[in-house]
């Protein structure tokens, strides 16, 4: 089924970017979620004046929080995302971001270091060479975008839970919070149970080659049990924390758990 070209307009990069731009937040959208009881937000919300926007927003935010709890309750850490044969891989795998590929972070792997912060025993930063020494596994899974499209890819890297163990992370903490190098400071929180899921991976390779810039060089966090926007690319730091620090899309209204 992954062969349908219209599902992934990835054949045409321009089209993809156009698509991503459509989901890009503008000032009005930010206001919609921020909770301003403005007429503009009201019109956006309902297309008419019937529903009071601020109370609707408050209600929707509450339900979304409730949905976080429901999803956490439903989450079975032993349930594995389906894996696929190599023949099922989507080619080309789409580049997807809220910016053009030319604006994607262009990181020099020699200078880059993964910063580790928060509730961990060993806060040492990791060079790419050091990380490449860790045992790696490959998995072919389906990436599902919040927009609805999906694509099957092959990701290779170190299970995040092994790394968390290695650095002596307090796995009773609530979140692992990732900061990325994207413009506008992309970041995203990952709940600890999802972080410890056996398929959650610090990814260094795509299709057995060093992760290209389009897919998040030098390191992506691949979480096959989460929607795409919770699979951060160009990661520069991770923090083990009990605080909910929000995230780029989460703050704008995407459901924070967004687990599959």
């Amino acid at each position, binding site marked *: 089924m992954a062969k349908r070209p219209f599902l992934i307009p990835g054949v045409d990069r321009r089209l993809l970017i156009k*698509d991503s731009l459509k*989901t890009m*937040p503008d000032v009005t959208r930010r206001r*919609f979620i921020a909770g301003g009881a403005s007429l503009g937000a009201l019109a956006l919300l309902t297309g008419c004046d019937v529903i009071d926007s601020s109370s609707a927003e408050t209600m929707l935010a509450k339900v*979304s929080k409730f*949905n976080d709890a429901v999803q956490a309750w439903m989450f079975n850490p032993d349930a594995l995302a*389906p894996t696929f044969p190599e023949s099922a891989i989507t080619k080309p795998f789409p580049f997807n971001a809220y910016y053009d590929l030319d604006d994607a972070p262009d990181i020099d792997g020699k200078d880059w270091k993964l910063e580790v912060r928060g509730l961990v025993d060993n806060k040492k930063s990791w060079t790419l060479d050091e990380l490449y020494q860790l045992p790696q596994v490959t998995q072919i899974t389906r990436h599902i975008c919040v927009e609805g499209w999906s694509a099957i890819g092959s990701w290779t890297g170190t299970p995040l839970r092994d790394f968390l163990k290695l650095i002596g992370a307090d796995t009773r903490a609530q979140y692992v919070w990732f900061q990325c190098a994207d413009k506008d400071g992309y970041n995203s929180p990952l709940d600890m149970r999802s972080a410890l899921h056996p398929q959650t991976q610090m990814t260094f390779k795509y299709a057995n080659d060093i992760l290209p810039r389009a897919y998040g060089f030098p390191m992506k966090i691949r979480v096959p049990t989460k929607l795409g926007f919770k699979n951060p690319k160009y990661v520069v730091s991770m923090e083990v924390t009990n605080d909910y620090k929000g995230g780029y899309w989460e703050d704008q209204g*995407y459901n924070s758990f967004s687990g599959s």
Partner: protein
Amino acid sequence: MASLTVTDEQVGATPAKVIQPAWVRIMHWINALAMILMILSGWQIYNASPLFDFRFPREYTLGGWLGGGLLWHFAAMWLLMINGLAYLITGLATGRFRKKLLPITASGVLHDVRAALTFKLGHDDLTVYNYVQRLLYAGIIVVGVLIVLSGLGMWKPVQLYYLVMLFGDYPTARYVHFFCMAAICVFLVIHVLLALLVPKSLRAMIIGR
């Protein structure tokens, strides 16, 4: 109670029967609201990554952008699910489904379709559904179950992988979800048109008689 027979000419010689019990009416209108919220927010979500070569006009979408549409969709979901489950359970437990919707025979459907198309299908007794109604109402319940199952599968393709398997794979579940929506929209148009053509059926769904 023959002694209580009303003489109102509009009602006729027999007492006005309850055509739609209160629980049916309440659940019907809650469902109508939930469906409209789900469809309009669903169109917003569809527009983020269309399956076909068209998008829904922005004026007919709910939420302002994808994130808002998703918030509405996953809020109205509870209304639809809880109300829908209550409806299915009550419908089965009270025997309403069996009494009102069964049997559905091919000859009965053919007969009533022909009668409907030649405007000869009577609606004298609204307590008995004709075969076209039975088919449509039973069919839309099946579609409703399918759209919820495909939707749940898309929401939780790992945790509820067996639901995705039921439809084949994740992209197929999306198509099933879409076509169920389309079927509901077609149903909605026919349903509303017919209710307007037979206003007493609309009245029955509001005040029961």
